[in-house]
Structure formats: C-alpha cells, structure tokens
C-alpha cells in the first residue's frame, strides 16, 4: 500500500476524511435511532 499522494494530498485526504465522517455519521445516527426506538417500545410494552 502507498499513502504518499504527493502534492495532490491536499485534495485527496480531505475527500477521504469527509467521506469517512459522512459514512460513520450515518452509521451512528442510524444505530442510535434504532436503539432509541427499541428502548421506547420496550418501556411501553412493560406498562
């Protein structure tokens, strides 16, 4: 593997960074909403 992007690194790394943030953000947001919904339903079913 080669991570030396030369002079183009200033464009390549931000692009990879933004993509990573977007993807990880989407995963965290989706899983958090799922857990919230599950907890809420469980609490309601207990009543």
């Amino acid at each position, binding site marked *: *593997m*080669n*991570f*030396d*992007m*030369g002079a*183009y*690194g200033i*464009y*390549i790394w*931000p*692009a*990879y960074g*933004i*993509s990573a943030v*977007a*993807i990880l953000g*989407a*995963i965290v947001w*989706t*899983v958090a*909403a*799922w857990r919230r*919904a*599950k907890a*809420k*339903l469980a609490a*309601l*079913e207990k*009543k």
Partner: protein
Amino acid sequence: MNWLFRYANPHEFMRLSGAVLPYIAVATALCFAIGLYLGFSVPPDYQQGTTITLMFIHVPADVVAELIYGAIAVCSLLSLVWRHPLSDTAARAAAPFGALFTAVAIITGALWGKPMWGTYWVWDARLTSFLLLFFLYLGYMALWNAIEDETRAARACAILALVGLVDIPIIKFSVDWWSTLHQGESIMSGKIAPVYLAPLLIMMLGYNLLFFTLWMVRIRTAILERRARNLMQQAAS
C-alpha cells in the same frame, strides 16, 4: 407479486431483515477493507496521477446516490399502485441517505475537479443535473415533513419522487448529450484500466451494501416507532 407482499408484511420484514442483516453488514465491512487496500495499492494514473484514488470514493458515492433515488421511485410506484404502507416507510427511510451520498459525491467531485480541471465547480450539464438530484432529495424530505396527514404526505411524496425520476437519465446521459467538462462514461465502455477497475467495483459494491444495511435498519426503526405510536394511542383511548 405474492412473494413481494409476503415480505412487505411488517412482521415478515422484521424477521427476514433481522436474519440477513448481520451477513450484509459483514460483507459491507469486507468490501470496504478490500476495496481500500486495493485502492491504495494502485500505481498513479498516467494522466491524473495520484488523484485516481479519488475515483474509489467519488464514483461509488455518485452511483449509490442515484441507486437510492431509483429505490425511492420503485417504492413510490408500489405505494401509488398497491397502497402498501411499508413501501412508503421504505421510500421515506431511504431519502436521508440519498441526500447524504449526493452531498459526498459533490464534495469529493469538487476536490477532484480543482487539481484536474482547475476549478471546484462548473455549471456543466453533469454537475448541474447532479446538484438538482440533491435538491430533489431535500424537497422530498421537506414535503414529507410539511404534510401532517401521513396518507396524503405519502401520496404527494410518491408523485414528487416519480416526477423527479426524469433527472436520473439526464445525469447518466448528460456527458453524451452535451459537451461537459466532466469526463464521459468509462466503466461500461471498457476505457478504464483493469488495475483501477477492481478496487472501483469493490468499493461500489461496498457503498451499495452499506446503504442497503442502513436502509434496512431505518425501516426496522420506523416499524418499531409505529408500534410504539399505536400502543400510546391505545393507552390514551
């Protein structure tokens, strides 16, 4: 269509999606690991130098952004014709991911455009029609939130999604119909060197599987939320 309706039943959907989700999630992670490994092992392109590595994140984001719109359009058609509530849930659940990947494709494209074209943005047919896709997603999500009655919102959104579908072939063929700064199609026409094709295809598969995984979880979340709402209504009455 019977098989489809069986899986469109929320109970069946929860059972089936719960069973396949772990496998799809692992396949997604594998695609990203292999795709990134291969992507960072390619030699620099003779024209584009090291910026070729941007292709492995820009093109998959672009492809999945359009695929998600197609998924919303199919669900919208199912909703309008058969009035199945799960198809509305599925269409609505996909939209935020569509908007997100469209934004990612635009930003990574801009960061590729600057070193290769000398500009982050140009109002050519490809970029403009793709920006329109971003606004279509925003408009679609806004319309869902604007109409309180869920059945009416679903109908209006389904119609908007199907009308907006005309943008997808325009994006696809924009590089053929008009003279664009954006390069033409290079995967199907075999213009791309094989050494770049493998990481690109694997990353494309990874992005699509990632969307599919997240989409399933969003639909499952929406089903649980509906059950909770029904319980609260029962308790109130």
